[in-house]
């Protein structure tokens, strides 16, 4: 089997704050191959965005500190590369899309200029992105970048792209702006796309269009995607694989159908139970008791133990390892085997 696009191994990250060091990532394991769309789900503050930002080293340090682990992108450890080498990968090899399309475009510049700047930055590391002769002058490269920008807008489904290049961000709707941001993330032809809640700020019909666009991009260009979201519906619709995070740990991961059909970790099951269905009566929303643990002084053992209905004394002794339960499906719970036995019995 060929080397994966991205392999995160045992990643530990702390963030220093006034109250002390918070262990925000506690041994993350994640492998992304080309053609896969990984959904990274979990409630707010579980570390899913921090995982995404860590991949292209976007967290300022201090306060961020990587205790151990590695983030191998195409075999190279991002945590050991000099920052200039990481910057050269940003936009070119790793594209990113963020949550709020209203604040992620620069209000002072036409979108054409913003796209051209990203294209030129990417082309400074890989001139083949621009379709022009290698010794082309500045102006010629700019013209080529502009042609590419228009082609990208067309690809993400913005009508009349040539003319739209000269518009400012505030002249676009929210959905259109997110398309512009996707075009910007893809203009450098990245191999890995990290999309941090790309549809959370959009309404449902636009959300479906954007997700379809992402899926189409993966199919057309054979890239890998990490889709960070807290919406299991989005994951079920879009992703090939899913990793469920809780308080800095990946508690369950596997192919999306497998995890959603047969959730093995009690936290995943609680998340699924919290999704209202047509049968849910008014006032009968299923919540999950308790709150996310304090990450500065996390509870011993399994971090979910204080809220878990299945807790036994052994749970609080050591962090449960990820147990392989077949078909690429893993769950970090010491009771997973006996639970499954009980279900099958």
């Amino acid at each position: 089997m060929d080397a994966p696009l991205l392999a995160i191994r045992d990643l530990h990250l702390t963030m220093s704050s006034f109250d002390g060091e918070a262990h925000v990532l506690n041994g993350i394991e994640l492998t992304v191959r080309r053609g896969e769309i990984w959904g990274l789900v979990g409630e707010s503050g579980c570390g899913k965005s921090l995982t995404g930002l860590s991949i292209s080293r976007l967290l300022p340090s201090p306060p961020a500190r990587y205790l151990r682990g590695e983030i191998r992108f195409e075999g190279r450890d991002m945590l050991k590369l000099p920052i200039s080498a990481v910057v050269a990968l940003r936009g070119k090899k790793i594209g990113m899309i963020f949550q709020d399309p209203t604040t992620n475009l620069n209000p002072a510049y036409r979108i054409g200029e913003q796209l051209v700047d990203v294209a030129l930055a990417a082309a400074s590391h890989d001139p083949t992105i621009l379709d022009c002769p290698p010794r082309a002058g500045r102006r010629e490269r700019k013209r080529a970048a502009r042609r590419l920008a228009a082609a990208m807008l067309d690809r993400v489904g913005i009508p009349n792209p040539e003319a739209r290049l000269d518009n400012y961000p505030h002249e676009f709707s929210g959905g259109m702006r997110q398309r512009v941001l996707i075009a910007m993330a893809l203009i450098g032809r990245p191999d890995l796309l990290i999309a941090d809640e790309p549809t959370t700020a959009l309404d449902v019909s636009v959300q479906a269009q954007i997700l379809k666009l992402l899926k189409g991009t993966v199919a057309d260009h054979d890239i890998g995607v990490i889709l960070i979201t807290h919406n299991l519906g989005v994951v079920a619709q879009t992703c090939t694989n899913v990793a469920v995070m809780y308080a800095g740990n990946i508690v369950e991961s596997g192919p999306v159908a497998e995890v959603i059909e047969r959730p093995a970790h009690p936290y995943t099951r609680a998340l699924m139970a919290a999704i209202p269905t047509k049968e849910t009566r008014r006032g009968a929303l299923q919540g999950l008791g308790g709150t996310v643990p304090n990450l500065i002084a996390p509870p011993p053992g399994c971090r979910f133990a204080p809220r878990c209905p299945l807790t036994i004394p052994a749970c609080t002794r050591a962090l449960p390892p990820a147990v392989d339960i077949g078909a690429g499906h893993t769950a970090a719970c010491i009771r997973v085997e006996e639970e499954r036995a009980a279900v099958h019995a």
Partner: protein
Amino acid sequence: MLYFTVRRILLLIPVIIGLTIIMFAIARLLPGDPVALAAGPNATQAEIDALAQQFGLDQPVWSQYLRYVGGLMHGDFGTSLLTRRPVAADIAAYLPATLELVFAAMFLAVALGIPLGLLTAVWRNRWPDYVSQVFAIGAISMPRFFLGLLLQLCFAMWLMWLPLGGQLPIIMIPPPRVTGFLLVDSLLAGDTQVFRSALAHLAMPAVAMSLSPLATIMRMMRASTIEVMQQDYVTTARALGLPKRKILFKCVARNAISATLTVIGLYFGWLLGGTVLVETVFDWPGLGLYATKAIVSQDMMPVIGVALVIGLLFVFANLVIDLLYGVINPKVRYS
């Protein structure tokens, strides 16, 4: 855009009315008899009365006011009691020197303050930032005239690099007056010797006037840069691999400047009104010096005229700033 501009220009009318009323009231409330002062120490009462009648100063205040405003309509700012010359002609003669000084000071303040503000934001909480903070506190709290005296002592008396004061040496023949700005006129006349000398004369007063706005603009720019650097679109720019320099000087700078523009506009007016002290120290033949002489001899027409011109320029400068907002931030333009 046009509607906006016209509306702002119409706003000048209440400003003129307000300014003239206030200045007139202050002029009448001041103790002393300007007419007697102007007539000289040996004038008889009859001569004083004749002079008062000649200038309409025997009339009631409201009728003097109406006559003054009537004159303003066709550009008549009244007549100076002291020089017996029309105030409008005096202002036209002295204004360019003041504007030259204010423009030079503002140019220094903006051209240095904005990049320094950006850089100290990047280097925040490191030694360049601390140095700039100490400099800013010093520059803002030091009175301009005192700074002017220090500069004179250092660069004119000890080092003898720069002339002590004035706009040109007496022996130099000024270029033909086209714009009234000595630097521009000397260039138009192709007289580099006069240009160099004019620049040397301008240097110290311009620096003395620029330090305080420079410090303020720098600190404002630092604060707004830090704010803009936390915006989502800067993270996106970083995440998509834009070079650091481009992020700072392009993505961040333009957004940060728009918050600083307001301060620049305010300082322009502040400098216009504040030239009095610096012009006195450097013997600069501008409006400030002219107004000082008029105030000392209680010659009110020039004082009112100068206040009016400065007030109008101030409003005008802020109009320009408001229009610049639209250039820098396209969103303002459309709403």
